[in-house]
């Protein structure tokens, strides 16, 4: 039990990018609690100025290696909306298919490689190779399955080549579609085994209700397309994101924070689960039930479980999509549509693995980007991460310093923050109050 605490974890490990955790407690009162971001900014909005319609999706995919398909899709959708390009139904189905597997790949990486070591009380996945080889092998097999799907559809696992504005530069073959279907069927065995492992995991008991925002669609558990929806009861067209999504600079923090209805909100797998539970496949719902995940869920740590439930949903829904695509017959003539460059503004909104992702482009009369604005999920979560920690620390203040530090690190990791992504528009300066 401690009265005073000075915790500084620099950098927090097992998150993508560089963030520091700083907690000062005096006489059991929090004096300072921040998640500081010294990661270097990259200036993607500037890089995009003057680019032709076919370049932004390739450039912005390089914002993030882990969610390059998400950035590619948000970018293509923004450009297609701006230039009034309507990709074919076949293109949309193939995009949804590749999208699922980036999400699976990213969720596997997070649940097994970054978060799981905490569940087993070790510092990384490396000791688990000795102690829990079956878990590591399941993780590697599921990750490989998802990466192979992205490779087959996109041309490579990181920064897809074939997904372009207007459609695909090359289609998978029917043989490849059948091969992917088999890979998906084979993965169920590992999902079953993972379920048994996760059932035994002790998820910290912590609840703080907040606003949860994601996209939502009448047809799908929305990842690729939909309206923007909140658990606070509002729903808007994705083109009107500015009506609700705000960004502000706060003095006690280093990053731009976002707010909508309240002073913070959460995006990501748990937000999607809370908004769109009904659209999950029955099988995914069964997994959620077995793992004690019910909508609405206000325990941030359960984000990891929601990520696993999404893996199950993506495998189920991919089989449906493949059957649909094969049933319709892959058609080369539907691979690309004609494009007329011109002026216009368009917004592309998708669910990146870590949550709502917004690309907003304005093209000038020469068909080049005049203005670009990108809003990244991790930015949206920063304010909520700090509010969660402010709520958590007093609840566990009677534990040892090591336990408090670990609990806060685990809480940050539960969000699966992607700091490289978020720093393209970060305000990198610390002002102590």
């Amino acid at each position: 039990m401690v009265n005073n605490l000075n915790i500084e974890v620099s950098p927090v490990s097992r998150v993508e990018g560089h963030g520091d955790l700083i907690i000062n407690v005096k006489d059991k009162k929090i004096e300072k609690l921040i998640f500081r971001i010294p990661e270097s900014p990259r200036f993607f909005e500037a890089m995009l100025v003057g680019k032709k319609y076919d370049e932004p999706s390739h450039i912005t995919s390089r914002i993030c290696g882990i969610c390059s398909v998400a950035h590619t899709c948000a970018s293509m959708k923004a450009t297609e909306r701006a230039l009034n390009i309507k990709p074919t139904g076949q293109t949309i189905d193939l995009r949804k298919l590749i999208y699922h597997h980036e999400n699976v790949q990213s969720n596997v990486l997070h649940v097994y490689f970054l978060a799981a070591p905490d569940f087993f009380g070790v510092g990384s996945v490396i000791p688990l190779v000795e102690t829990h080889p079956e878990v590591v092998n399941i993780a590697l097999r599921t990750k490989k399955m998802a990466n192979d799907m992205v490779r087959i559809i996109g041309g490579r696992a990181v920064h897809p080549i074939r997904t372009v504005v207007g459609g695909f530069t090359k289609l998978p073959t029917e043989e490849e579609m059948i091969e992917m279907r088999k890979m998906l069927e084979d993965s169920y065995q590992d999902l079953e085994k993972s379920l048994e492992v996760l059932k035994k995991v002790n998820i910290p008991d912590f609840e703080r209700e907040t606003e949860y925002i994601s996209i939502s669609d009448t047809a799908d558990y929305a990842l690729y397309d939909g309206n923007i929806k909140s658990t606070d009861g509002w729903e808007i067209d994705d083109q009107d994101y500015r009506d609700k999504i705000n960004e502000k600079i706060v003095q006690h923090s280093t990053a731009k924070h976002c707010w909508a209805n309240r002073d913070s909100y959460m995006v990501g797998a748990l937000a999607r689960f809370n908004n769109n539970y009904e659209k999950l496949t029955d099988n995914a719902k069964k997994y959620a039930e077995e793992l004690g995940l019910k909508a609405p869920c206000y325990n941030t740590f359960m984000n990891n479980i929601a990520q696993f439930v999404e893996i199950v949903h993506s495998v189920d829904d991919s089989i449906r999509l493949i059957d649909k695509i094969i049933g319709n017959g892959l058609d080369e003539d539907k691979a690309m549509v004609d494009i007329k460059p011109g002026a216009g503004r368009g917004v592309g909104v998708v669910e990146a693995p870590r949550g709502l992702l917004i690309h907003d482009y304005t093209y000038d009369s020469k068909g080049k980007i005049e203005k670009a604005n990108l809003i990244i999920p991790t930015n949206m979560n920063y304010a909520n991460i700090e509010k969660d920690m402010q709520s958590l620390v007093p609840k566990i203040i009677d534990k040892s310093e090591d336990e408090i530090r670990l609990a806060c690190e685990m809480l940050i990791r539960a969000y699966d923050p992607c700091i490289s992504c978020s720093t393209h528009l970060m305000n990198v300066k610390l002002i102590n109050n």
Partner: protein
Amino acid sequence: MGKPKVGIFGFTGCGGCQLEILNLEDQLLDLVNAVEIVHFTEAVTEHSDNYEIALVEGSVTTKHGVERIKKIGDIAKIIVAIGACAVTGGLNCLKNLYGLEKAKELVYGDRKDWIDSIEVKPVDEYVKVDYYARGCPPNRFEIIDIVRSLIVGREPEIPNYPVCVECKRNGNTCVYEFGMPCMGPVSRAGCNSRCPNSGSGCEACRGLIDNPNVNAQKDLLAEYGLTVEDVMEGFNLYNACKKVTIEKNKNN
């Protein structure tokens, strides 16, 4: 060399190169057994500054980054630059092209002076780099081949011929026939011509071959109706820090 101690370090980039290392699913456990990973913030909590080999991802774009890379240079016996951002400066160099101050102003407005951001440079502008795993993303098998070579004490084989060689070997129809720009004739191979294989032009993400004939490349593209502007866009996407100059044709 025995079981070498390896540190994996991220500078300014997208994390995709480190992800490609994790994407070595079938060989990852062998890699973990063959070396001792002592520093890998994104995957491992424990860390030490006692390493012999440093795998470095990303460009140096901040004052803090300059200090970090110099420290790594002091400690590591061998530095391997991984991925376009580390090797050529990569796509980050588009910021230099736009103008550092202008970019700060555009993105951060009146708070631009808060930002620690300097001209983007590749890693070898600050420390000696022993090996380069090129590309965006790099070829994960090339990374493992470099590490394997270091362990057994042989030189890794890294191609210094154009992408066209691989593209021809793969039996692709030249993308010029479809009117697409392609940097294949002057770009370094080693990617197995993965973009032309997928129906797209090469973007020179592995950098240029030694002594590329850039003017001939410009003439070739002109034959297919592409402009100097298209050519410069092509060169600059991943190589803007390398200062390739093209004589501007008066007719264009």
